């Protein structure tokens, strides 16, 4: 037994009939230092983001109610008054609701008759390409001239936007909240409670099936069937999660989770199933149920590689540098997202470019480069650039450390 170490941190095992004594990795400095530095950086970024203040909506009210000479704040609403302060010319209120990558804040202005006269997005953290789609499709304009007793639901009294469903729902929800506030506090009219139905459809059912089939596939001993099932889940993921619905796991969702920007449960059950399912399996079973089994972008690269028989390539000499580069990219995206409460600020995955044909010039070049490389090597994006892989590693590492601490705790109690 090594000197200076308490007995509880020694793990005795018998290998090949020979008793060996090894230290638990909890005290392995090579792994311990980077792990705790990462943890501290994440905590620091989270605290920085928490203390950042939001944007003040008051100066913007004049833009939306130009007739108002004076704007006063009454409770949660802004009231626009005429020059003589005798006449109310408009009301405004801010609504906030979760979008795809974080909260969307929207200022809504209404005239005293209850018609919306203007809206303005105060802040959002959506992926620019998706959010731009709302403007291109005139989604935000639709609110103007609508009466306060409308439902403001995409697909009902608002035209839905294909490809930016969750962002559109976030904008609509924030508008609904603002309209309700003005109706209650300004117009003194009470609206009936919102009807909320749990959205459970093909994406949710497919996701549950993929988790279940993947779990069974993991446990199979027959490598032939394991391979067949894996290809089945990969192709299903590629078609359903990728091309049809475009809802893969992204670093933005991880940052949203850490930031506390949890979307509405009723309309985003898929988000909870995806994030919750992965966290559950990684924490309990120490297996990554997503990347190799149904990640649509991974499946796409693997399909290309299968055509040419591409093999994994990573020069041994550069292995560590590449690993740390991948971790650095993931950590940068997480730290920036947390510090600025902007989950998709430093996201770079080319998923939307491939599945939705949407992205800027650099994203298109990045995608083309990855596609060409996929023909020569196995999953180049996953193995070199993907930020999800280091996140999974970090969760596994955390799980291992928690288990070790728990074992030490149990041994300490037993020794007493």
């Amino acid at each position, binding site marked *: 037994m090594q000197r200076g170490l308490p007995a509880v941190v020694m793990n005795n095992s018998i290998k090949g009939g020979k008793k060996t004594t090894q230290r638990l990795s909890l005290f392995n400095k090579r792994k311990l230092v980077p792990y705790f530095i990462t943890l501290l950086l994440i905590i620091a970024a989270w605290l920085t983001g928490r203390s950042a203040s939001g944007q003040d909506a008051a100066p913007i009210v004049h833009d939306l109610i130009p007739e108002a000479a004076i704007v006063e704040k009454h409770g949660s609403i802004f009231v626009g008054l005429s020059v003589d302060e005798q006449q109310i010319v408009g009301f405004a209120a801010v609504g906030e609701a979760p979008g795809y990558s974080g909260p969307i804040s929207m200022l809504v202005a209404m005239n005293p008759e209850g018609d919306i006269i203007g809206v*303005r997005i105060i802040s959002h953290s959506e992926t*620019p390409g998706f959010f731009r789609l709302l403007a*291109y499709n005139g989604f935000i304009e639709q609110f*103007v001239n609508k009466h306060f007793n409308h439902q403001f639901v995409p697909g009902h009294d608002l*035209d839905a936007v294909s490809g930016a469903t969750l962002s559109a729902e976030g904008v609509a929800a924030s508008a609904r909240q603002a309209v309700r506030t003005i109706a209650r506090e300004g117009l003194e009219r009470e609206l009936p409670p919102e009807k909320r139905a749990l959205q459970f459809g093909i994406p949710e059912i497919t996701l549950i099936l993929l988790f279940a089939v993947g779990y069974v596939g993991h446990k199979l001993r027959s490598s032939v069937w394991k391979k067949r099932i894996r290809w089945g889940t990969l192709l299903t993921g590629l078609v359903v999660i990728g091309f049809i619905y475009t809802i893969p796991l992204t670093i933005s969702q991880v940052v949203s989770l850490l930031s506390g920007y949890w979307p509405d449960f009723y309309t985003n059950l898929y988000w909870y199933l995806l994030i919750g399912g992965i966290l559950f399996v990684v924490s309990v079973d120490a297996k990554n149920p997503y990347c190799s089994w149904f990640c649509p972008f991974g499946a796409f690269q693997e399909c290309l590689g299968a055509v040419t028989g591409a093999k994994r390539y990573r020069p041994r000499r550069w292995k560590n540098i590449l690993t740390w580069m991948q971790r650095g990219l993931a950590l940068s995206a997480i730290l920036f997202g947390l510090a600025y409460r902007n989950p998709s600020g430093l996201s770079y995955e080319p998923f939307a470019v491939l599945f939705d044909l949407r992205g800027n010039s650099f994203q*298109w070049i990045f995608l083309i*480069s990855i596609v060409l*490389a996929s023909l020569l090597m196995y999953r180049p994006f996953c193995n070199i650039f993907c930020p999800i892989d280091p996140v999974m590693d970090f969760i596994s590492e955390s799980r291992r450390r928690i288990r070790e601490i728990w074992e030490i705790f149990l041994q300490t109690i037993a020794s007493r």
Partner: protein
Amino acid sequence: MGDISTDHREQVKTILFLLFVLFNAVLIFLIWSDNLTERSPENQGFVRGAQIFPTESSDNPLDIMPDQDLDVDDSSIPTPPPTLQPEKENFDLGDIGQLLTSSPITRRI
């Protein structure tokens, strides 16, 4: 002789691989830069009536501040052109996706 050839091939492969990594790392930085530029307040529009104006309220002649004289003849004030999106100077490769996915009915702008 065969070993030297294999070594040489391996070196070329490694160099090409590193060039690929470097090229894409630069692209990632450019994507980040583009993301952050696009999110800047200057590029966030706001909607009034059925129009999206630039964010800078000073550009809008209809802005009325509390201390300003309100007895203004509105007809003499030029109305800003109803542009629904900031005009792009150059065609962006990213527009390809937009053009491909937008039908004439849904693409209003």
